[in-house]
Each structure stands twice: as C-alpha cells, then as structure tokens.
C-alpha cells in the first residue's frame, strides 16, 4: 500500500469583476458591495492554490505529474479566466462573482482532474484576502 501524500500548487490569473445583483435595488447593491459595486468594475491578480491527495506512485515517486496538472489548469482555468471580465463568463452571467462563488466554480473545474483527489482550494483575491473551500457540504473558510 502506497503512502498517501498531499500536493499543493499555485496558479495566477488577472481578471476584472463587478459585484452587483440585478434583483436588488441600486441603493441596496451599493450598501452591500460598497466600492466593489462601482459600475465599470475593477480587477485583481487572483491566486488559486489547489491541494490534491493520492498515493505516492512507487515508481515515479509522485502523487500526480505536475506537467499533467499544469496542462489541465492551462486548458480548463487559465485559457478561460485569465485577462477576462469574470461577469462575462457563462458561470457568472446569473451569479455574482464574489470570491466565495469563484471558489465554488473553480472547485467544479479542479474536481474534474482525473489523476488525484481534490482536497482543498484556496483563492486569494488580494494579499489580504483568502477563501478556502473544501467541496460540497463543507463551509467556506474566510481568512483576513
């Protein structure tokens, strides 16, 4: 039986967004989202840290090949999210792109990775703001 290890890797993308819910009045949006509700949007350098677990392969010594994870991330995340306006992406057409909701969407993407089990996903919106998500049923942990 191989030992189980956890592997974490970070990726970065730059995107803009605006926090606004059409169902709420302009005043209420302003009250809830503050400067994040500014009409033209603003942006961030996002950092995504994914943690996968799995048995350490006896021959390669790896949980998963980082090249496989990098090419998966390039295709499924970075090509779709980097240098975009998050509000224009299909997943956020009807969903406000808070970092919490971004965590859930990114979890859906990385959960499809076939070679290891996704354990944790952390999104940092700025250097002072991080959100952890552990998948369906587990609460999002917010760290300031």
């Amino acid at each position, binding site marked *: 039986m191989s030992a189980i290890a956890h592997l974490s890797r970070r990726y*970065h993308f*730059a*995107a*803009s*967004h605006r926090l606004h819910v059409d169902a709420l009045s302009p005043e209420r949006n302003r009250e809830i989202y503050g*400067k*994040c509700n*500014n009409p*033209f*949007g*603003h*942006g*961030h*350098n996002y950092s995504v840290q994914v943690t996968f677990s799995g048995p350490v392969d006896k021959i390669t010594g790896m949980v998963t090949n980082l090249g496989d994870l990098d090419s998966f991330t390039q295709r499924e995340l970075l090509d779709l999210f*980097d*240098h*975009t*306006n998050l509000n*224009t992406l299909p997943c956020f057409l009807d969903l406000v792109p808070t970092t919490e909701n971004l965590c859930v969407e990114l979890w859906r993407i990385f959960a499809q990775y076939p070679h290891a089990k996704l354990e944790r996903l952390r999104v940092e919106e*700025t*250097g002072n703001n991080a959100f952890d998500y552990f998948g369906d049923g587990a609460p999002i942990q917010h760290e300031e």
Partner: protein
Amino acid sequence: MILLTRKADFSAAHFYWNDAWSEAENQRVFGKCSNRQGHGHNYTLEVTVEGVIDPASGFVVDLKQLKDIMEREVVSVYDHRHLNHEIPEFKTTVPTTENIAIAIWRRLDGKIPGAKLHRIRVYEMPDLFADFYGEGA
C-alpha cells in the same frame, strides 16, 4: 540627502487599446490585454521622496502626511475603478504600467511639502513594474 519610500495598494480594471489601430492590429500588439471587456490587477504603488533629515523630528517627510496625500491624490481616485472608463488621463493614453507611473508622478509632483519626488514605481504584478523619475530624467 536621503530617500524614503512609502507603499500603497489599489485594485483596478483596464485594457489596452489604440483607437487609431484596427482590431487586428490591437490584437497583434496588445494580445489578451486588448480584450474590450477589460481585466484587472492588484497594483502596488511605491512613492520615493528625497530630502534632508529634519534635525528636530528626524524625518525627511511626515509619513502620515505622505500617506494621506497618496490616498487623496491616487488611491482614492484609482482604487476599485476602471482606468480606461473612469480616469481622465487614460481617456487619451493607454493605461500601461509605464503610463500609470507617469500619471501618478503628475498627480503627486509638487504636492509633498518639504520633499522632492524622486521615483514612482508601479507594480502591476509582483514580477512586473515600471519606474518613472520625472519629466526631465
């Protein structure tokens, strides 16, 4: 003479576009930065001033005052804004990191009592920054 540097952060959206060029030319020169919907960054601003140390206070410049000036002249104007759509200087110039450094210099030059502006450094990302040392430099 001594140099003193203060940092501040702001988050903003932008895109690169030159109206004089075709869409294909904008795409060729600016790549993914030319997406008209914009994208964004967490910018870090470093303002470096030069001066002499006041023998009584030991300061080159009052740090609280410098922070307040940076907040009033730059951060409160740029933070959580779309640079192309909302900031007057980027109606006519492309908001590259280089042009942002120049624009911030112009916003701060002459506004800091007792010290001379030495350098504006703007980080678009931790591995990319531009420096500006003034119009005559």
